């Protein structure tokens, strides 16, 4: 496919893909490299990185291996990012497709609901959901997904609105296709690419949202997540600032990778915009 070739022609996109592969590799290999529980005490607390060969990235306030937490944290970030994004995109496509295709009162009602979600600051809603439903991994993931669906919904709706009046859709109607066949067979395959590309943006934001929650001690404290570690490191910021610095770099690299891949996909699938 020439879209694939176009993707690989951009150095930024390739760099993003490589970084993403590195993060995924970290997540996969965490179990082999660090077979013990990453949240178990491993050594003396607050060792500096590179001071002890056993702990290349040092230890945190309680003496847990930072490197182990970084590797296991990759799993959490990718998991939450991936599942929350899937939830957001699924809800978004559903709402956007029906609002965009049918218009009228269905569109009105769905757009009011979307607007309600967008008027309320999404982090605030996240706080409310966490206050109500608790802070386990499952609830946090679902909450992040629920907070993120409005933007994909608007995007899908915009695509459907523009495609609904395209002549090939009208042609499908004159051939006798029914509404569901038109939505699923004719419009959706053409509407999907920009939404799929937008999924990378949603994922980047989802990872940032969860880590912010974890930093505030509002996410699941029983998993080794990068946000948790940054929150811990805050108490020792003055001297042992590396405890907060290292997981932050991990988040930065991961979100950067996801964004670069998304941008690369966008340029590859929309070649006429590439010269810009």
């Amino acid at each position, binding site marked *: 496919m020439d879209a694939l070739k176009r993707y690989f022609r951009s150095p930024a996109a390739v760099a993003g893909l490589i970084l993403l592969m590195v993060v995924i590799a970290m997540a996969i290999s965490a179990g082999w490299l660090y077979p013990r529980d990453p949240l178990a005490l491993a050594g003396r607390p607050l060792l500096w990185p590179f001071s002890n060969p056993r702990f290349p990235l040092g230890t945190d306030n309680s003496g847990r291996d930072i490197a182990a937490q970084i590797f296991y944290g990759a799993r959490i970030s990718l998991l939450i990012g991936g599942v929350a994004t899937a939830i957001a995109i699924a809800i978004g496509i559903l709402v956007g497709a029906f609002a965009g295709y049918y218009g009228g009162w269905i569109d009105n009602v769905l757009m*009011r*609901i979307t*607007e*309600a979600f*967008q*008027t*309320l*600051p*999404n*982090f*605030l*809603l*996240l*706080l*409310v*959901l*966490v*206050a*109500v*439903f*608790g802070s386990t991994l499952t609830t946090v993931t679902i909450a992040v997904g629920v907070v993120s669906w409005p933007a994909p919904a608007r995007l899908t709706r915009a695509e459907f609105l523009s495609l609904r009046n395209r002549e090939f859709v009208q042609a499908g109607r004159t051939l006798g296709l029914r509404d569901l066949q038109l939505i699923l067979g004719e419009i959706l395959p053409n509407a999907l690419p920009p939404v799929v590309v937008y999924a990378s943006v949603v994922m*980047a934001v989802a990872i*940032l949202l969860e*880590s*912010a929650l974890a*930093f*505030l001690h*509002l996410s699941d404290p029983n998993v080794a997540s990068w*946000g948790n570690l*940054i929150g811990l*490191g*805050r108490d020792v*910021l*003055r001297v042992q*600032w590396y405890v*907060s*610095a290292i997981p*932050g770099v991990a*988040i*930065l*690299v991961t*979100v*950067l990778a996801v*964004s*670069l891949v998304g941008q690369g996909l966008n340029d590859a699938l929309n070649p006429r915009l590439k010269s*810009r």
Partner: protein
Amino acid sequence: MRILSLAGRRLAASVPTLILILIGVFLLLQFAPGDTVDAMMAQMGGGDAATARQLRHFYGLDLSIPVQLGNYLWRLVRLDLGFSAIYGKPVATVILERLPPTILLMTASLSFAFFFGILFGVIAARDVNKWPDTLISTLGLIFYATPSFWFGLMAIVVFSVYLQWLPPGGFEDIGGVRTGIWHAIDIARHLVLPTLTLGLIFLAIYLRIMRASMLEVLNLDHVRTARAKGLDETAVIARHVLRNALLPMVTLIGLQAGTMLGGSVVVESVFSLPGLGRLAYESVVQRDLNTLLGIVFVSALLVIVVNFVVDLLYARLDPRITVDG
């Protein structure tokens, strides 16, 4: 007149949205484990079931949910946001106390992000694909990927711990009694790092959008006409590109208002600012659900007001927008 009637119509359309939000969050909070009375009793150090029942009756928490909702909405119309068990004051008072720092922070961050976003976006678009563009776009990407709270912490380490140029937190110097301009300067010093932190992600977004918008407008037909008339490049950009490219940026302010308010929760926590965002966090931790609901109401109101102003601005800039357009 056209502008006012346009924005007025959109404002009227936000009222159902506001009501929807309030009803939604109110109902959501009914699912919370423990209510205000539990929190109060925890503060009081415990109590028996009879006291709990009395308190519930006093606060009207034993009524059915629809009735409670009705009461709440009715009180809201009179701007009575209820009572905060944790702070021992009316919610409205607590919120009003905490509003100024947040508004100051948001205004400063928005101005910073908007102004520099436009500046760098224009520079990047003018030298597209050359080194200024690559540098600016790369930096933009990195800023976008940086978690704001982490950047705040690192900024504290660099500027407060090592360089000792700026204070590590708080809104103003406690203990020092400064007045007038010195007071203002003191607050400003305290707000430098938080503004940078909150504004960073939005700077990245605005610069990306401005760059894309400029590039798109530069490809439009009327720019070719302007060149065919003999205008030089600066005049072309100043008179025929900038204003057209600013339109999506103005819309973006409205769309990002909510996100910025949410971001202030984290930034205010990192820098210990006594603002609305940190109040929200505290309410969650202390289970002060009344206050949380009040904050939701005020936040939604703020976002709606910002969108109203944005609509006015947009209609002023774009003569094509009509009442039924």
